[in-house]
């Protein structure tokens, strides 16, 4: 296992350098540059133009700039943004990351949990009512044009029903007199979610050791509910609950849209592998042992069908740091996805490359985690 991990980490490092190089030259190959808008301005004197060129580093040839970039990359320095001059790229990412991660991790989690449960049930009662409706609805949303779905949801929930805010991630009027910045509240919300996740995982590990199903359920449910109640109480006592609530309220619509759009992906994977597993002889054996139907379904069938889903899930978690350009634009959500678009529009090369490299690192790490998880879930796989 350690040898495998070492080999994989080495592979990832090599892959990362190749990736950075490819990304760098692809962006470099785009016509024009950030300083062109100034260089072509007849009002500027040649001296000022030369000066500008030197300041942004465009006086050096591309391959020298590449070498400088790689040197900086080795020290984890992604450079300085052009359009937000003189903010560092890492600072911009650090500022926008919590918003994107909170939104996209939530929707990925919700859509996979939904997909797992629906897919499992749909396959178990194949061509039943649930199977037919979920497959139909899932495929409709899966093939729908995402901006259309977003606009429809905004129109339905924000304009007609007036129960959810239209866009943005906070209500500016509310936050004018706020004692804390939205960023702080965001990070605290993330921490709460993290604590909940850790408690849930520990409860899951403990319940796996328990033998009877009621005991497992009690441990899982009580620990989850207790954590939720305790964290809500802490939030209320802290006095910032209105602000946190405001953020959560703004999140509902994008999360709903993303979940509707993507749950069919995980559902169909789960349904397909489930249908394969159901035909296995050990499912008949489990039934013949006199086990209740839902135990056969969950413990024997779904547990085996889970493997491809888990891999997909972990890898899509890696992609969450990249955000989504369409979703974030539709909902005016100032996250990483919006930063991509802005960087592209203003030809802010350092920011663009930085964002791509950052997403790449996470996706590569996610692959590694997926490999390790696979070995944990399937005893036949040993590295």
């Amino acid at each position, binding site marked *: 296992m350690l040898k495998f991990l070492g080999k994989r980490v080495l592979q990832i490092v090599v892959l990362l350098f190749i990736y950075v190089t490819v990304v760098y030259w692809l962006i470099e190959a785009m016509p024009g540059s950030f300083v062109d808008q100034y260089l072509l301005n007849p009002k500027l004197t040649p001296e000022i133009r030369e000066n500008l060129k030197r300041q942004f580093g465009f006086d050096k040839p591309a391959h020298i700039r590449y070498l400088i970039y790689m040197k900086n990359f080795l020290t984890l320095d992604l450079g300085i943004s052009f359009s937000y001059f003189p903010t560092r790229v890492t600072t911009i990412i650090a500022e926008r990351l919590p918003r994107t991660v909170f939104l996209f991790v939530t929707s990925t989690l919700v859509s996979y949990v939904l997909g797992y449960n629906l897919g499992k049930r749909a396959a178990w009662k*194949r061509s039943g009512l649930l199977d037919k409706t979920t497959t139909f609805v899932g495929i409709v949303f899966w093939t729908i044009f995402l901006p259309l779905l977003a606009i429809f949801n905004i129109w339905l929930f924000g304009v007609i029903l007036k129960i959810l805010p239209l866009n943005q991630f906070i209500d500016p009027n509310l936050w004018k007199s706020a004692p804390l910045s939205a960023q702080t509240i965001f990070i605290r919300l993330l921490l709460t979610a993290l604590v909940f996740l850790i408690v849930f995982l520990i409860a899951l590990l403990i319940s796996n050791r328990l033998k009877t199903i009621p005991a497992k359920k009690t441990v899982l449910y009580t620990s989850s509910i207790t954590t939720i109640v305790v964290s809500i109480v802490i939030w209320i006592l802290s006095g910032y609950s209105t602000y946190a609530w405001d953020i959560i309220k703004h999140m509902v619509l994008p999360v709903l849209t993303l979940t509707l759009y993507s749950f069919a992906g995980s559902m169909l994977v789960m349904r397909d592998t489930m249908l394969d597993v159901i035909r296995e002889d*050990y499912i008949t054996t*489990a039934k013949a042992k006199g086990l209740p139907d839902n135990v056969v379904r969950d413990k024997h069938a779904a547990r085996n069908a889970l493997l491809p889903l888990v891999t997909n899930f972990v890898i899509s978690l890696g992609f969450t740091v990249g955000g989504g350009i369409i979703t974030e634009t539709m909902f005016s959500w100032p996250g990483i996805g919006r930063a991509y678009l802005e960087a592209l529009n203003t030809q802010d090369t350092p920011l663009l490359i930085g964002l791509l490299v950052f997403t790449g690192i996470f996706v590569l790490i996610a692959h590694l985690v997926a490999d390790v998880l696979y070995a944990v879930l399937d005893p036949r796989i040993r590295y």
Partner: protein
Amino acid sequence: MLLSVRDLRMYYKTKMGYVKAVDGISFDLDQGESLGIVGESGCGKTSISMTILRLLPDNAEFKGGSVLFDMGNGPVDLVNLPESEMRKYRWRGISMIFQAAMNSLNPVYKVGDQIIEAIQNHFPDMPLDKARQKVAELFTLVGLDPSRMDQYPHQYSGGMKQRAVIAMALACDPKIIIADEPTTALDVIVQDRILKEIRKIQRKLNMAMIYISHDIAVIAEVSDKIAVMYAGKFVELADAVTIFKQPMHPYTYGLMHAFPSTVGEKTELVTIPGEPPNLLNPPKGCRFAPRCPKADSVCSEVEPEYRELEKNHFVACHHPVQPKEVVRFYAE
């Protein structure tokens, strides 16, 4: 009587019509007795066991008959039992050794845990350490090292998996074990050893067994009674010696002479011409008539009754083979 199956009928519904896989099967099984069911592939052998345990796919339709099973408190008709009640009889009353032992263990759970699961399902009050002790005893009984119970199925060899599956079938002290092709996937040497062991355990625990196989040699080795199945029906049922010495149905006769024997007098090997009928649309009269050298016009019109021609010797034939008679099968 421990198990009494009467006129059991189960058809599979397909787009082209009903496949009559189990079509009027009757037999009795007593404590400690072993019944072998032999027949070609696709004649409905496995469907019988699946019908008894009610582990049928969605397109299976039960068409009549009864399965009376007596666990000591009076016979119960398994056919009419609600699903929740039926679950209590599975494995506790009748357990199974499945066709493909390789695949009947769930790959992601430890072998011991899968047996404990069966035990604790039927005896929820049994503490874990007692259940583990029981599994260790079962492992010793089937010739496995008890320390292997915490290993996963993929760490077992084929023969060991088969033994583990047998141990699992014994876990809840069932009254009957149905062994469906218990050794087909194994090589002949392991096959022989495992069969002998199953037989030994069966005698020791005085259990009833139903063996299902296409291999008459396997059936002969382990059964007290043998039923010969053809196209969804039993054509002959008698004790093992009678079936071998004096088969009365021409199909049984053909089967018995289709295998070379290393002992006894030399006999001519027989091949039965033709193919088994399609169960979607079986012949009107006797289902074996199109392949039978003794068939006449009655055979292709009237279905022969399954009756007791001699004591404990059931045959469904209009023209049973007489003692000393030689039946000649001609290919086309």
